[in-house]
């Protein structure tokens, strides 16, 4: 019974309560004791500013210029010719041009679909593997090294390796299937199979991140919580649902937000494995942008695409973030 309420279980288990952690928010935003609260809150704010300022200045110094340059370029006409026409302010014309291009919408739709599917797959597989590896046994120690293996290979080489493995004729995937008596398909000649190939490749590259962040998250969960719940008679699934998952939420949030931005920007694997093909079946925003900037040398249009790109990612990430953090704060 009590296992339904993790906090209760914690209280019973003794130290390391989880609830107190939002104290700084409370102290910072809504000081209770007026005068004393204000000075403490003020000092805490000052500490916060001092601690974050160096990183913010460093980021501003390195990232601000390229970002502003891109935003500014997206509002201008831009000729790449020596002695070409002067750049001039064109308002949102570059954006209009990008939005009027059907290829942009194809790429956007496929990117969004890819992001959703890949995040679900990565989280589900990553969670299963991380839970399996969380406990300390000799075999699992070795397996933990194994799941980190994809990190060892440069992403471009990993993409080329998978392309090779999936190719008909000399690829090992179809050779393996043939040994099992199954005739393997021509993976990259079919739109859906080509999409699946991209998904598998990228999941393979990204899973170590997902698994290791979840493992680190699991490491932060005090062991006695599960123990107490177990004593109270909660089964595996119940403990997973009511204790582990809620406590993993920060780790999951980190994964979602970072992998979201990365998945949106997926490029290497698509560029290497399908080049956006067959047809335009695997065209994504990054390949569209790459073609626009470096095949067509349309830098102003490329800048507009980049800004739209960031807006889409930021809105999506913001939404995910708002939903998850809110629920967490309500908890």
């Amino acid at each position, binding site marked *: 019974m009590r296992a339904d309420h993790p906090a209760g279980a914690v209280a019973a288990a003794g130290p390391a309560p989880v609830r107190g952690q939002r104290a700084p928010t409370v102290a910072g935003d809504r000081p209770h004791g007026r005068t004393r609260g204000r000075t403490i809150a003020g000092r805490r704010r000052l500490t916060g500013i001092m601690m974050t300022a160096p990183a913010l200045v460093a980021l501003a110094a390195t990232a601000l210029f390229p970002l502003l340059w891109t935003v500014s370029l997206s509002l201008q006409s831009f000729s790449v010719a020596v002695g070409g026409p002067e750049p001039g302010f064109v308002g949102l014309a570059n954006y209009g041009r990008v939005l009027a291009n059907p290829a942009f919408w194809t790429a956007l739709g496929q990117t969004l679909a890819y992001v959703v599917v890949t995040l679900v797959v990565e989280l589900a597989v990553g969670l299963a593997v991380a839970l399996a590896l969380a406990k300390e046994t000799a075999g699992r120690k070795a397996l933990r090294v194994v799941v980190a293996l994809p990190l060892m290979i440069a992403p471009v080489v990993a993409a080329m390796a998978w392309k090779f493995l999936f190719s008909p*004729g000399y690829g090992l995937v179809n050779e393996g299937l043939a040994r099992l008596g199954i005739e393997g398909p021509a993976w990259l000649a079919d739109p859906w199979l080509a999409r699946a190939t991209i998904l598998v490749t990228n999941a393979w590259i990204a899973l170590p991140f997902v698994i290791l962040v979840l493992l680190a998250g699991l490491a932060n969960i005090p062991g006695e919580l599960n123990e107490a719940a177990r004593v109270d008679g909660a089964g595996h699934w119940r403990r997973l649902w009511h204790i582990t998952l809620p406590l993993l939420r920060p780790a999951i949030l980190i994964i979602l937000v970072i992998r979201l931005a990365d998945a949106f920007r997926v490029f290497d694997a698509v560029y290497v494995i399908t080049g956006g093909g067959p047809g335009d079946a695997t065209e994504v925003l990054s390949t569209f942008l790459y073609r626009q900037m470096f095949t067509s040398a349309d830098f102003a249009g490329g800048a507009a695409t980049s800004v739209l790109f960031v807006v889409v990612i930021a809105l999506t990430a913001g939404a995910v973030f708002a939903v998850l953090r809110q629920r967490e704060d309500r908890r």
Partner: protein
Amino acid sequence: MTMTRRAARPLALATALSAVLLGAACAPSPTSSDDSSAGSGKGTTITVGMEAGSPHEAFYKKAAADFTEETGIKVQILGVPHDNMHQQFLSDAIAGGTAYDVLMVDQPWVSEFAANGYLEPLDDRLSDEDRSDFVAGTLDTESYDGKLYGLPFLVHNLVTYYRPSMLEAAGIDAPPTTWEQYREAARLTTDPGTGTYGTMIPGNRDGEVATRFESYVQQAGGDIVDAQGKPDIDTPQARAALQMMTEIQFDDGSSPAGLHDLSAIQGQFLEGKIAMVSVWPYLWAMATDPEQSKIADDVAVALNPGNPDQVATTFSWGLGVSAGSDAKDAAWTFVSWATSTDVLTRKGIEQLSPVPRTSAMDAIAQSDELSEADRKALAVFSDSVARSTTMPMTPAYSAYQSAMSEAVSSVMSRQATPDQALATAQKQMEQADEG
């Protein structure tokens, strides 16, 4: 060389904004800069950008010592991966183009770089004697709007490599000269039981597929632009090309399943699994080397089959002088040395590849370093180039290639009919032509 005005404007705005936000101290000072460290020639050192890992880079890196000995000009050769050369050169040109004195230029970029003023016109520098020594038509591959912007060191096109033993076993005594014979020969040499196929039809979405498709269209007597140079891909010839490709791939099954790229085509041919493939001249050296090829003593070259024209689109690689270079004379000295008769003769013999100078081809033909088979292959390469025409010289060509490869790949993955694919490609090419 100042920061070019084009780049300066958005730069100035962004700089001003960062200055406001950061305090002027942190913001980069927008001085008109003459500070390029890598490219300032001073007449003694020139910087040459070449394709990393290419046989050309390897050859010129070795040969550059001779050049320095002859002229006193030092050469720094910088390798750039092919996929990124265009991007790298473009970025540098936008910033004033001082990083490289000499650029190795793939033909599709010549007109774009020339139109944008990144390359120096070379007409006044090339002597009439040299001009007439270049094989007819090869200088056109480096020209835009009537002016010469580079000298080619390689002009080549696709030729057909085949395994004589496989054709003989199928009762065929000569390589096919028409599409009909090609289709028939491919059918007869296919045996899925042993995993051998007659040929491989390209279909992966990449630039290579576009050049192959363009070659097929020209074999059918057409082209991808009309007489006025406007995009013209929705034609009977283009349809015939796609029909030939789909018949061999799907109706006959004489090409293995999959959307093939060059890497696969060449790999499977060298593995001995394919009877006939279209590949570039460079494959000859590999195909006859037992270390790299299982068919080293069972390979020959022929012109491509035609419908009826036995041609293939020619492409060149050349060297041009960067308009932003401050050592243009030294840069030109290097370009003319690198494409001289002596150097090209050496390159042709070492790499068994065709070269665009008549005098060098003659010298190669007489060299006793070559075997009879080598000589025959080189004759086919030259003949194939001589009877073919090149790509349309337009800055929009890269975009044309992109449109063609998307069309072919959507037909070969059966997502679109030839009619749909060609109509889409035509629209995309028109847009690129206008933009």
